[in-house]
């Protein structure tokens, strides 16, 4: 068994939470190598070095890798991947974009969104927006696995991995990066936050979303949203929680003005404690909430914020 974890790196910056949890998951099977493929990897490689159970960090540097275009995983890099029996990536937009392309080139299947590792070739993954859990066994020579990071812990530190710089020819003549529109804010990342406050269509407008954000800031929380809230332009796309948005499992998830459609529940029902505020006592969100308050959000939320 030889395992490679592909680190998620954006233009030299390591996505630490996603990568660490993926390493932790993969290392349930054995020690792992980590691939650092980006434009400048020094900082990321150093951060990864101290993670327990990491054996060797393989560094490949190229400008063409900085924005994670899957086409830059060209022939020579694919050759390197063939040395492994398992390849793990986080099931983030990075991993979802990349892994199936690698699989297509290798003519192998993927096992995506793995929530539990059973054996070297057997994994559990949610299907139907989490309404069923499937246990599958891969017959492929290389197991290509993406990890649902909300189901795993961060990897402990205490390692002392080797760093190996590889000179591999990277090519990409068919796609190129133009720009990123990334909103900066001081709040914690949605996927690693301990507390999340999410707003839905009930919030009513972009301006009103300030009510949600104020409560979130009081709690030091990340802000999430339902698809309806994002589609209506109340919140940016990267706040969406759900089957097709982010999957989160914080200590506390506060759903405000969200009805609780299965597609939304798929992204948050593994949260430890769920609080729901909705004026409709029949809203399905109350079926998964530990604590529910039937109340108009514009009355309840500012009051809660004041009293915290």
């Amino acid at each position, binding site marked *: 068994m030889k395992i490679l974890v592909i680190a998620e790196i954006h233009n030299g910056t390591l996505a630490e939470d996603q990568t660490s949890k993926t390493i932790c998951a993969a290392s349930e099977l054995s020690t792992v190598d980590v691939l650092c493929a980006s434009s400048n990897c020094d900082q990321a490689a150093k951060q990864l070095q101290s993670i327990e159970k990491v054996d060797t960090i393989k560094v490949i540097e190229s400008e063409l890798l900085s*924005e994670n275009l899957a*086409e830059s995983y060209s022939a020579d890099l694919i050759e390197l991947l063939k040395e492994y029996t398992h390849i793990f990536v986080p099931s*983030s*937009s990075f991993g*979802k974009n*990349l892994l*199936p*392309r690698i*699989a*297509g080139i290798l003519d192998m*299947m*993927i*096992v*995506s969104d793995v929530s539990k590792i059973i054996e070297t070739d*057997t994994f559990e993954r949610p*299907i*139907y*927006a989490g*309404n*069923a*859990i*499937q*246990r*599958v066994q*891969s017959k492929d020579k290389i197991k290509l696995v993406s990890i649902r990071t909300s189901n795993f812990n961060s990897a402990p530190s205490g390692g002392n991995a080797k760093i190996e710089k590889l000179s591999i020819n990277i090519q990409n003549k068919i*796609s190129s*990066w*133009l720009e*990123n*529109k*990334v909103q900066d804010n001081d709040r914690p990342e949605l*996927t690693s936050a301990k*507390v999340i406050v999410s707003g839905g269509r009930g919030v009513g407008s972009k301006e009103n979303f300030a009510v949600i954000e104020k409560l979130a800031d009081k*709690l030091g929380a990340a802000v999430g949203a339902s698809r309806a809230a*994002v*589609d209506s332009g109340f919140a*940016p*796309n*990267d706040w969406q929680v759900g*089957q*097709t948005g982010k999957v989160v499992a914080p*200590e*506390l998830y506060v759903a405000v003005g969200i009805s609780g459609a299965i*597609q939304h529940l798929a992204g948050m029902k593994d949260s*430890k*404690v*769920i*609080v729901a505020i909705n004026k409709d*006592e029949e809203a399905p969100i*109350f079926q*998964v909430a*530990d*604590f*529910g*308050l039937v*109340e108009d959000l514009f009355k309840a939320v500012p*009051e*809660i914020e004041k*009293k*915290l």
Partner: protein
Amino acid sequence: MKILVPVKRVLDYNVKAKVKADGSGVDLANVKMSMNPFDEIALEEAIRLKEKGVAEEIIAVSIGVQQNQETLRTALAMGADRAILIVASTDVNVDIEPLTVSNLLAAIVKKEDPKLILCGKQAIDNDFNATAQMLSAKLDWPQATFASEIDLDKDNCKVTREIDGGLQTIKINLPAVVSVDLRLNEPRYASLPNIMKAKRKPLEEMKPEDLAVDISPRLKILETKEPETRASGIIVENVDELVEKIKKNAGRN
């Protein structure tokens, strides 16, 4: 320009999946089936490109059971010009893996020579999120996944993608595969006259053997089970009570 749109027949998104008691899978007998919502969005985009005069022909392809004909008739009613059905199973409970789907689609692409393939980003049944990427790899074409905006030119295409941090815009050469996200457009409903017209549009049927594609699965499904259910909670009386609960459970970030 010819556009290919693969469409999958899935359990309708409004229906809650029920796991069969014997652990063999999700019950798909006598339940409402529909076109995968993401594929509807892909098809809508293709139709709009045709309406703008950018695309000349739209071919919808479905892979699965004989009943996928209905899905293709819907696609034709929405505005696809013709349809191809690849019957890869006789059992509605068999899900064809994305790798197989991409191999079959690649074979169709060789015959039809489209310049653009618009796919849904994931199927809401198996939630794999893989067909577009695998297909683009098979064809050695560029891919643009999770598209929320597509700006098509003669030889290339600018695509805005929904990624974890926000939005990313990339440029890909044509021919290409684009997988679409929810916010790209809102699909139309087929009108009654168009539903009638669709019955006369060509629908060709094939088998995987006709395309010389091996469809044996790579994953063995050992078991399908119910997820763990949450213990039922309580409705609190007032804000003060809720504040107490929040304080108790909101460990600092």
